[in-house]
């Protein structure tokens, strides 16, 4: 697998949000404004690169049985770093992201990539994978936030757009708008990639980091 494909895979073909359907909570929550979306995307990208690189470097040291708690502690450490940096240097973004900033810890993208990629691959590949997934996450957030902000409140990165700002569809900036825009975007990606049904829906749990722990859950319900 070439280095380049490690990087570009996350952008569309294995887009973490639209194709793997990981990290839906922050996607829906912070995509009301483009500036918040980019801030959230960059914060998550930083955590993703660092955690992927460190987990990959430690993959032969961490015992297999306790790997999930180890990963969580590492990720939580990097999230704390991001929290402190943002609080000190970008306080308005820190306030705007609020509770969703510490919740990067439980963002499935990060734990999912650690489990699916970083613990099997070399450090450079894992860091590139983290960067690619982070870019995919940030771009998706930006697209969603742009749709919701432009049509919902008639602004883009806070700059008012003539006509649209007087005729905003305000429901798009609220919770139902998040669900509906996200649903339409996934349908659009399905159409572009020519899939009849999103594979994530078939094997929803496969993308989840707890899939291993709760394998019996999957069997019992289906």
């Amino acid at each position, binding site marked *: 697998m070439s280095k380049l494909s490690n990087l570009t895979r996350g952008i569309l073909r294995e887009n973490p949000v639209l194709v793997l359907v990981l990290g839906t909570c922050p996607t829906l929550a912070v995509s009301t404004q483009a500036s918040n979306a980019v801030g959230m995307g960059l914060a998550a990208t930083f955590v993703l690169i660092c955690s992927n690189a460190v987990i990959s470097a430690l993959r032969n040291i961490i015992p297999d049985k306790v790997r999930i708690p180890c990963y969580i502690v590492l990720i939580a450490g990097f999230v704390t770093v991001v929290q402190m940096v943002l609080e000190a240097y970008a306080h308005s973004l820190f306030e705007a992201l609020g509770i969703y900033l510490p919740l990067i810890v439980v963002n499935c993208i990060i734990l999912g990539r650690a489990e699916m990629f970083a613990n099997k691959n070399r450090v450079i590949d894992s860091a590139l994978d983290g960067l690619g997934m982070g870019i995919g996450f940030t771009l998706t957030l930006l697209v969603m936030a742009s749709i919701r902000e432009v049509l919902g409140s008639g602004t883009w990165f806070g700059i008012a757009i003539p006509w649209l700002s007087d005729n905003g569809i305000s429901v798009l900036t609220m919770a139902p708008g998040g669900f509906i825009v996200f649903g339409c975007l996934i*349908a659009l990606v399905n159409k572009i990639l020519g899939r009849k049904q999103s594979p994530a829906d078939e094997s929803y749990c496969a993308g989840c980091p707890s899939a291993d722990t709760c394998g019996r859950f999957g069997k019992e319900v289906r």
Partner: protein
Amino acid sequence: MIKLVSILMAAALVNNYVLRQFLGICPFLGVSKDLKSATGMSVAVIFVMCLATAVTWCIQTYLLVPRGMEYLQTVVFILVIAALVQLVEIALKKNIPALYRALGVYLPLITTNCAVLGVTIANLDKGYGFAESVVNAFGSGLGFFLAMVIFSGVRSQTENSEPPKPFEGLPLTLISASILSLSFFGFNGIVENLFG
């Protein structure tokens, strides 16, 4: 007492965690296929939310704040929740096997559920006391339960529908969730009008 009731109603209906604040979307979309698993998952979430809030509130107030270590909040909370879920699983298995059979399969799923970590941090951000925190956690769990049960009903109906091909599966589910979320706007202002 009135304050506690208003916190409970606000958490369960007005600020519904799933439909208004987008916390715990993964189980909401993943486990809502039928009523039985939706109920089991939600009851487990209510249980863990209350327990986690009680424990983390004490840790924050009596351990982290007096020592000036609030910056460790995120790391400590996620560890406490993970350990707590494990302990609850072991304790239930040993002492109350009937309850374990009902809830046990859902417990490992909850460790990485953002609603649980979210409620513990939100309580401290809002400066709630111990009783208020636990009531808020219970209310949030109740809201999760409500959303899950209603949505499992919606899904059993949409399962047999025939939408355009690209909308099949997840997109259709998300758009149904959007409509359900819209209907929860009806609860806006209910707390102010009842207790204001």
